[in-house]
């Protein structure tokens, strides 16, 4: 479904992409400078891989549903 040329899925992709970049960046920063009071299961670095997953999904959606591109 398009909003006058821009698909709702593009907006969703944009949201996932920006959130993914911020979360991934925060996760990497925590690896470089570990926090004084880490969360439970900090060793799994959930924000790194979850952020990366959102980033990749967001990128795919942004490209696939980019304004002007035929889907």
């Amino acid at each position, binding site marked *: 479904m398009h909003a006058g040329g*821009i698909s709702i899925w593009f907006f969703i992709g944009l949201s996932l992409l920006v959130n993914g970049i911020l979360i991934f960046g925060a996760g990497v920063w925590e690896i470089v400078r570990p926090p004084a009071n880490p969360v*439970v299961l900090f060793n799994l670095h*959930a924000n790194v891989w*979850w952020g990366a997953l959102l980033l990749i999904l967001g990128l795919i959606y942004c490209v696939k549903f980019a304004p002007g591109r035929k889907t």
Partner: protein
Amino acid sequence: MIAAVAMTVPMTLVHLSTVDIAIIVFYFGLVLTIGMYLRGRSRTGEDFFMAGREMTAWIAGLSFLSANLGSLELMGWAAAAYQYGILATHWYWIGAIPAMLFLGIVMMPFYYISRTHSVPGYLKLRFGEPSRALSAVSFALMTVLMSGINMYSMALVLKVVLGWDIHFSIWVSSATVAVYVALGGLRSAIFNEVLQFILIWAGALLIPILGLVEAGGWSNLRLQIARNASAEYTHLWSTLGNFKDNPMGIHWTGIVFGLGAILSFGYWTTDFLVVQRVLSAKDLRAAKMAPIIGATFKMLVPFIVILPGLLGLAVLPVKLTGETAALATGGHSYNEVLPLMLARYCGPGLLGLGITALIAGFMSGMAGNVSAFTTVWTYDIYRALLKKNESDAHYVAMGRWCTVLGVLISVGTAYLVMSFASIMDYVQALFSFFIAPLFGTVILGMLWKRATGPGGFWGLLAGTLSSISMWAWVKVDPAALRYVALSANARDMAENMYRALWSWIVCVVVTIAVSYLTKPRSDAELNGLVYGVTAIPREAEVPIYHRPTFWATVVAVLFVAANILFW
């Protein structure tokens, strides 16, 4: 805005970092951008109130579910899972799935073919103006009141969890919803609901995943819950043989007949808040598929709501209590289980996404209430009773102003509740009075052509009044619970189930009796409104994997299997 958001008070559950606040601010910016972008696409009444009736099954289906997936729903049922165990899942499975499938397969053709704008609009076509007026006025009033109560509750949650000022939370979130719904109408509400749905999953999904890792898998989780609480907390049906055998104090008849057959069918098939999303579908097949898609995801919601509550029982080092005990002891209440689990596993960034999920849930629920209120007010009250022959542009302008007005009334209700907390209980009870009888009226209207206009009106009125009477009876004399809920051991939830069941029966009996005493309408007049006299397009010409009945069967089989698995 960041500076204002960052002004938190000490003694909060979680503390946000700069990246968390950036994620929240980005979310607000994006929803406003969508609203402004869609303004030019909402010039006609059909655009503004019905989203142009051009939504795909996926968009309508996700929006249908998202309008119900408010943050209070998320936090409230996570708390219920901590308090009552896996029994809370009934509100997602038997309390939703059969009704959603029924809406898609049986009821949607009549809603869709009649081209109605709303559920009260259908009652007008089927039973006449008095039935529409009764349901429209009660729905409009209750919707904005409930919206205000949800707004206040969410602001309270943000104060407890983040230390945000209540007034700040109320005004920023409500102003945002008012702007994007007033600009883009239902289309904007739906687009944002789909975005919010994705964010809710992205923000909440990590908690059960990491929780299961920490607990050592489902089997170990059950053992830990049995040790910390009771083994009954992980059984869905086997403890429902007696009111005393389960923590919820409920019998299986209440779950099956009260919740599964009446309350859930009442809510999912006649509450215009959710039905409006499906009415925006682009064709009948999409309208039938939308509730089935919604049902599929609804079945998965316990993974991000109920499981965190159960995990809280196993892994949290503190014991959660009721609100009163928590206030007295300075401990944490059941309602804080989801934020506590969020703070347990989510570091910077993830925490911001989780909080955004909660805010998104609140805003999608509020936008749902406001857009449904706007449509019912404009089409079923203003146009029907006050100004009949104005231009389409006039009604669209009324819709935009009504959106702002609806939000302001909601804000007023929020402040009223802030001053008189007991009002919340009364308004929530009021809302429940209309759901079950309305289902009785609509289902008889759709499936029984002998039902007449006077029958529909008097049945709806009698069912509603009987529900109010039973509620008042138990309030005045608590011993009456043994009659209303069939047991003195029944708790609040059980009382609600049985009250819904009795009021539905009263509605149906009165509708049938009055209908037989009054003159029926001809078949020609009922064409497009009632089963048996309406030609419904067949599905035989499309491949099986395109047929709604096929997918409804698949979801039904999965629903039965899931119930057996967690028996």
